[in-house]
């Protein structure tokens, strides 16, 4: 069995109301609504309100938007960690709502922003946890069974992809932030997923580790055809590494398209309520966001 099977399955059942081009779409999201507190029914309490979009198979989609715009909630809905209150999500043409969680886990791997670990599991043991959904067959082996040689092989491949092989025997509690993030990505890859969901994969990482993580993500897409959906606060990072960007504003889709269309001074002013400078990345030519120079009220007055 190869680590990353072809992502274009033959898809059998279709979610209601979804098109027939299912197999080329990793996700089809229709009129998605979600809120955290079921009793608080005011219109303002919707975290996500009527989202409709597709995620193409094999693309890197960046979800950006201000704090509290629903980015992380959307990612968790795609992972089925949260359930929507209305609307449909189809995963490669199958209705996510009726798919057993363990089947979702064989297709979709989710890496949360924070990965607290208080016990000294080794990196290898942690990566092997990603094999759990593939052991769900017999009840006993699901709860207690040990990993097979094949599992170990897949875990080793995943560690290789994330440049962790030399740390396999190390305790995860001794890892640096960047190493820990890579470890969690390797754990996700051990699931042999077709879709990788990353929540702020570069938060709290220094420059070198940010570049490292982004390079790994690109490589996974190019070499294995992995679909990646990532949430990020870093507009420049999203602009540079994502094929398309989904801009959320207050739980609604504001703009979806290639970086050139979304990272735009007008869009950012409308969404974030502030003015920024936009120029081009010197190498790739994608839009680049720069914070404007601080001007005191006095200087502003002079200019006026």
């Amino acid at each position, binding site marked *: 069995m190869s680590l990353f099977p072809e992502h274009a399955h033959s898809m059998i059942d279709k979610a209601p109301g979804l098109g027939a081009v299912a197999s080329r779409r990793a996700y089809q999201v229709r009129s998605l609504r979600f809120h955290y507190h079921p009793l608080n029914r005011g219109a303002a309490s919707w975290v996500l309100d009527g989202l409709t979009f597709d995620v193409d198979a094999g693309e890197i989609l960046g979800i950006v938007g201000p704090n509290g715009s629903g980015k992380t909630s959307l990612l968790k809905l795609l992972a089925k960690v949260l359930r929507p209150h209305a609307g449909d999500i189809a995963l490669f043409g199958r209705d996510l709502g009726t798919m057993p969680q363990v089947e979702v*886990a064989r297709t979709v*791997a*989710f890496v949360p922003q924070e990965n607290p670990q208080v016990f000294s*599991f080794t990196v290898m043991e942690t990566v092997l946890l990603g094999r*759990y959904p593939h*052991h769900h067959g017999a009840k006993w082996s699901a*709860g207690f069974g040990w990993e097979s040689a094949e599992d170990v092989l897949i875990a080793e491949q995943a560690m290789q992809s994330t440049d962790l092989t030399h740390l396999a025997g190390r305790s995860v509690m001794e890892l640096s932030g960047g190493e820990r993030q890579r470890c969690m990505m390797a754990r996700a890859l051990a699931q042999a997923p077709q879709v990788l969901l990353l929540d702020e994969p570069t938060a709290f990482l220094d420059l070198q580790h940010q570049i490292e993580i982004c390079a790994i993500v690109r490589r996974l897409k190019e070499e294995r055809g992995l679909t990646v959906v990532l949430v990020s606060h870093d507009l420049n990072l999203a602009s540079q590494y994502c094929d398309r960007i989904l801009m959320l504003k207050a739980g609604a889709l504001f703009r979806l398209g290639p970086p050139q269309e979304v990272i735009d001074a007008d869009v950012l002013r409308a969404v974030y309520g502030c003015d920024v400078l936009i120029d081009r990345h010197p190498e790739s030519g994608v839009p680049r966001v720069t914070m404007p120079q601080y001007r005191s009220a006095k200087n502003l007055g002079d200019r006026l």
Partner: protein
Amino acid sequence: MALLVVMSVALLLICLQFGTQWIGLSQIIDIVGQVLREGTVESDHIGTTGVILIQVRLPRVLLGFLVGACLASVGVVLQALLRNPLADPYVLGVSSGAALGVALAILLGVGTTVVAFSVLPLCGFAGGLLSLVVVYRMAVSYGRLPIHALLLAGVILNAIFSAMIMFVTSIMEPNRSVGTMTWLMGTLTAPSYPALAILACYLLGGLFLLVKQARRLNVLTLGEESARSLGIDTEHVKRVVYVLSALITGAVVSVSGMIGFVGMVIPHAVRFLLGADHRLLLPASACIGGMYLVIADTLARTLLTPAEIPVGIVTALAGGPFFIYLLMWRKERFA
């Protein structure tokens, strides 16, 4: 694992020799052989020494092993579920909740004697489960369980339950209240063999069901959302493990009172020696926890011969300082 089992058996044999009266290993083998051959445990056949060994010391050592194994295992699973290496049924107030349940049952005359195997374990279960739920509810905030909130919740609950237990014992008849006090301090008393057998089936069954969750517990230490995204029904696993923990703690407390810190000291030591994988950690902690309590109880029996110290005092004196050490070490490392 096999090594641990061999070590456990060897340790049981060694500890059987100690006591008010020294019984040598060869004598033990003689007596056991005689009992097995003749199928009787009457004193006419095996002598006073035989009675001490077979009717007093052996069941007590076996009970100690069982209790220690259970406390250590419950400690392991509570730590995994709460993602907190300081969790322990005693520290979290589960033991005192169970003790309150049992003390109330004794007060109301539901059980005849302190070690009676009747509804007492069930009352312990109810009390233990209640305190688990309360501690969890008190400590949880926005889906997280901060370590200090959890410990504080346990401390508060312990204080409340202790007060209620003291009240309950204070209104008992004097002769009953003395027995209850001794039991509360954590005492192992030799049970009858049928009682021991029932208890063993019940507890080993519980441990078996816990071990069946070992792999899921591994995944759960990643955090609940990660675990759910890996295909685990986290709510189901949590419910199963909490209820099993309360059942086991309730039964253990109803026979041996409040024996503290075993559930915290042992998992720590075993993690240090064998790693954090629950498939190994859980059975190994059970074995080593059993051995630990047998040693502690041997000390309790022999240190002040012919008087006995409640074993709960021995484990608290050993475990308390260890807890302080961990708390300070963690502070240095994480805060």
